[in-house]
């Protein structure tokens, strides 16, 4: 079914739970078709649920048994793509040497926040044996283009939070700015009378920030790609037709800071 309805929520750019469900259903269909790995988890005994995806990636992670949560000047390479450097820690209690590449398991959950009436992205990373990564480690997963901005206001953007349905510590992107950056997308879509999947659009914005890839192909069933969509490859963005960016830019939520033929970095204002 075409869940390309406009994201009708309570007011324009907000998402009500039912629409969320519908968008998720549609998304999951696509995901299944693309073998993207998203699944739906339902909370026992209720109607509520969330989308979940687990990704395995590589990266160097600084783990020592005694110092899980404490900030360490750990040098962690990008989990995707780059070669890791050997890091030298200092004296430790445990003779666990700084490993080379290790497998890191990323778990992404898409929940619905009834408070903000937007979807929220929760995620966590851990080693295969279950030891979770610290926030700093997680940052290092963030694309350097976003990292600068995030480091300026770390606590406001990605924070450790209790998963509202599971109760375990996750990281999440604060949803309070979601409505602001979704509005222009929705308005343009509405104006062009195009159908839009809120979840797809939203996830394609926030996902890459934390290493989540949303292939372009999610949009194909929607029809004519009049809306310039984000083309995400390797966390790099290719330049869409100029006019579209300008449209987006004029709505005031996205500020292109540098134009590169192949790479564009954006600064986001999250909160």
């Amino acid at each position, binding site marked *: 079914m075409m869940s390309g309805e406009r994201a009708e929520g309570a007011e324009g750019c907000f998402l009500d739970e039912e629409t969320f469900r519908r968008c998720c259903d549609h998304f999951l269909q696509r995901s299944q078709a693309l073998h993207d790995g998203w699944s739906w988890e339902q*909370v*026992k005994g209720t109607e509520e649920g969330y989308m979940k995806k687990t990704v395995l990636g590589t990266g160097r992670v600084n783990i020592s048994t*005694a*110092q*899980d*949560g*404490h*900030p360490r000047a750990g040098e962690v390479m990008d989990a995707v793509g780059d070669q890791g450097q050997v890091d030298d820690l200092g004296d430790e209690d445990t003779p666990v040497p700084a490993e080379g590449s290790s497998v890191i398991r990323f778990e992404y959950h898409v929940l619905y*926040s*009834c*408070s*903000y009436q937007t979807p929220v992205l929760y995620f966590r990373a851990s080693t295969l044996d*279950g*030891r*979770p990564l*610290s*926030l700093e480690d997680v940052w290092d997963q963030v694309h350097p283009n976003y990292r600068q901005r995030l480091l300026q206001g770390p*606590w*406001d953007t990605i*924070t*450790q*939070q*209790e*998963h*509202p*349905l*599971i*109760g*375990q*510590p996750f990281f999440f992107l*604060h949803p*309070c700015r979601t409505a602001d950056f979704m509005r222009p997308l929705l308005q343009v879509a509405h104006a062009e009378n195009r159908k839009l999947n809120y979840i797809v659009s939203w996830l394609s914005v926030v996902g890459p920030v934390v290493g989540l890839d949303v292939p372009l192909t999610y949009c194909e069933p929607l029809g004519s790609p009049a809306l310039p969509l984000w083309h995400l490859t390797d966390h790099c963005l290719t330049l869409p037709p100029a006019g579209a960016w300008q449209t987006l830019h004029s709505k005031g939520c996205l500020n292109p800071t540098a134009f590169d033929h192949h790479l564009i970095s954006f600064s986001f204002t999250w909160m």
Partner: protein
Amino acid sequence: MADDKDVLRDVWFGRIPTCFTLYQDEITEREAEPFYLLLPRVSYLTLVTDKVKKHFHKVMRQEDLEEMWFEYEGTPLKWHYPIGVLFDLHASNTALPWNITVHFKDFPERDLLHCPSNSVIEAHFMSSIKEADALKHKGQVVNEMQKKDHKQLWMGLQNDKFDQFWAMNRKLMEYPTEEGGFRYIPFRIYQTMSDRPFIQKLFRPVSSEGHAHTLGDLLKEVFPAAIPQDDEQKKYLIVIHGIEPLLETPVQWLSEHLSHPDNFLHISIIPAPSD
């Protein structure tokens, strides 16, 4: 109105007598005496336990010191819950003082959030306030406030300053007269025997006909099992701030007066004592 002010004060100044005992497996240089403290119900564990940390640091070796965490009868205590909620949820049926065990090792990564500094608590606190306001006023009031106002809220809580806090907080408790109440009531219902940590739903304080919804209406909607049927015995106690309000109490009033400083109404549903 004077009664309401008293209620606000009693809520703010609520205390729980607590006995902190060091975990027996912690390595100490000498015997660590337990540390007694009256914990504020409305604050957070990591915010008010500096003295505990100092006390126990005295008997421990420097190199053994890691992030402090607490547990009660095997359950790690989530510092990001208000202390009063933790107590009501876990220990309200037991004898006072509340015996909390202090740990410095083996931080339960899966269960507890890290709290490296007070800024984490502040961020969490402010995040709760924003979420509550998003429910009450679509976030308009908190967004209109300046950074220093946000700071004042946090400082009020941190330094236990009722007046300083409420000078700002009262703005968050206002609503348009014609509405009769907030847009939605920010609340969370906690249970010990549940997978999900809490229940949070959208709930309007005033019905479409204009009646004020009560606590009973809320529970009926969100947790109907809590309300006993006519002939049944009471299975659950509905505890807020250590007391059981009557089910006729209007939720709007509860939200205004019995919320925690984070503007959420934290409701603990605990099994009624069987004796």
